[in-house]
């Protein structure tokens, strides 16, 4: 049972790490470079850039949180695996 739970936790951690990689590769982070003052100028472009910058920062922080969650799940899996190893009886 513990081993099954541990596998499940490791699978979830892998999926979270995949998500972090996908977030990292999003082209929306490169959009700002293409939307500078050499493309459009004025208060509304400035406003668009500011809003996207703020939203991108939130996404970046969420990515860090996802990686942290994955690490925690891996630790819990390791803990369960060690418990299973230490348990008496046939393995």
């Amino acid at each position: 049972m513990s081993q099954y739970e541990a596998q499940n936790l490791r699978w979830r951690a892998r999926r979270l790490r995949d998500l972090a990689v996908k977030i990292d590769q999003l082209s929306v982070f490169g959009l700002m470079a293409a939307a500078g003052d050499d493309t459009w100028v004025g208060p509304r472009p400035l406003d668009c850039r500011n809003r996207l910058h703020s939203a991108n920062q939130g996404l970046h922080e969420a990515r860090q949180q996802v990686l942290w969650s994955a690490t925690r799940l891996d630790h819990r899996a390791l803990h369960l695996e060690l418990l299973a190893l230490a348990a008496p009886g046939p393995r």
Partner: protein
Amino acid sequence: MSPPLAYQPDRIQALRRLAEHALDELRQLRCDDSEALDAAASIRRVQRVLELDWMPLLAAIESSDAMVTWTASHRVGLFAIGHTKWLRFGGASNGEAPPWPYSDVSDDELLRHLELAGRFTPAAVVDSSGGLVAFDSIADMVRSDLTFWSTDFPDLCAELSWRVTADPAFADRAIAAVGTSPLIAAATRFAAFPTDFTVRALRAILQRPDWASGAVKASADAAAAQVVANGAGDALDVLSDREALRSILQPGLLDDSVTEALLVAGLHEAVVADPDRLIDGAEVLRTAVELTSGTFDAGISVGASRGLATTMIGWIDPIAEDVLYENDTQEVLMRDSAGNDLGPVGTYAALKDFFGAVMRDEQAQLTMGTVLSAYTDRVVASAGGEIRNGSAVQKIAHFGDLLRDAVVEEQVEMTAAAAAATARREQLGGFVGFSADALLTATGARAAFKFVAGEIADSALDRFSDVEADTMPSLPLGKVTYDSITLTVLERAIDHPSERVDLGVEGVSDEEWAELAHRIEDIDRAGPAERDGLISGLRKAASKIPQVDALLSDVHGKSGMETLLETPVCQVIGNPSVPT
């Protein structure tokens, strides 16, 4: 009506394709794990920004007449900004009237319009019926139904903001023109300008020598309010300009509420938000101390007094580290919480002038009393069991001495003392410093302190206004500080049994502690008439307990404590009465 924008047509097409691709990626990104809920919300937020802000604007640009004409005929309708060719969104490439008011005027004409409009005084504007109407601010005029101010002025601001954003050279020119066109600074309040332009515009207008014009004053108020709205860091940038700071402190220039907000944002919130800016704040404070020491015959403005008093909740710590009266020419050094040198804040004499100027306003007096009490609570709590042997008590005592020396009227001293006595029981030590309230944002911490300080001010005024002026006992700030230190140290020992060994008061019975606690509660609740008697009673009760008596003897023997009890050198002006 949205403000205009200019764009490079080929680059805007590429940007639209990139944005579409980015949006597709975001829509396909899925993860149903419960640990990914925040990430999913963040993804949706980015998606919404693109869907609601970017795509509609890009689509509108691409479907505009100018773009269609350009796409069909290649290079029609282009105009120059610097060395590159641009199209204007909604531009009049086909000879129709320009869709944006003032978009077809030259840079010179635009500045001329603003210069002419700036020759007004908000106290007397001619309305549509030919009568004179007074307004408090440009914002009120824009909100009114005045023909120019409610319609053309916002359009002028929008056009100015567009040109300033698009063309750095024009931005420099506009800043240089603030001297003759104060409304350039005011415009920053009524359209979206780059924040650094707003800072430069406010600095420029505050450096103007002629403040007679109502338009200059109203424009400075508007730009200052916008700087505060843009962020505390921008406010600190403005304060860092010596000439701008001189104008900000001077009475009668900026509106008092704007001055207060600017000082609190720049000198407190900016440092809480970014600790690296402590050194910039220290430089501003040093300049403020220097300027208040002899620069202003009529003192500083009410807003400056209130703003500076509020910021002391952060700056009392760096200043009080080194305050030790030896002579008036002694330089007082500021230190951060790690003991690092932040440079001198000024001489002892200059600091006396500074706090004397700050404490001319009653609200500032109440705030300073509250700050002193909060500082006492913070220092005693930080020192814990070390209070008996360390230098904590003398820091409070020396700062109390400084404030007492700074006061030139007995009534001022009594007001600050009333607040200090009232605030003691609130235990406000958590507010002191720049990082004390980690759970609150910079603005939140300031707002919370302001609320608490306001409550204390009301309570202090209520308690002390109940007493007849003729029978009002003297309430020296020095003695109140002395008593406050005594009460706070005793309270520390009562509330923290684990520190009693370090304080040397182990072995005192629970009954004895309970009696002291009861007496302290009575003192905190008492009005000024009963206060001295109750404190004497506490001292007598404490003296009967040898360990507590020895503790208080050590505390009272610290440097600066005896000085607190000396008769203050105050000028009694009129009948010393309670503040009302």
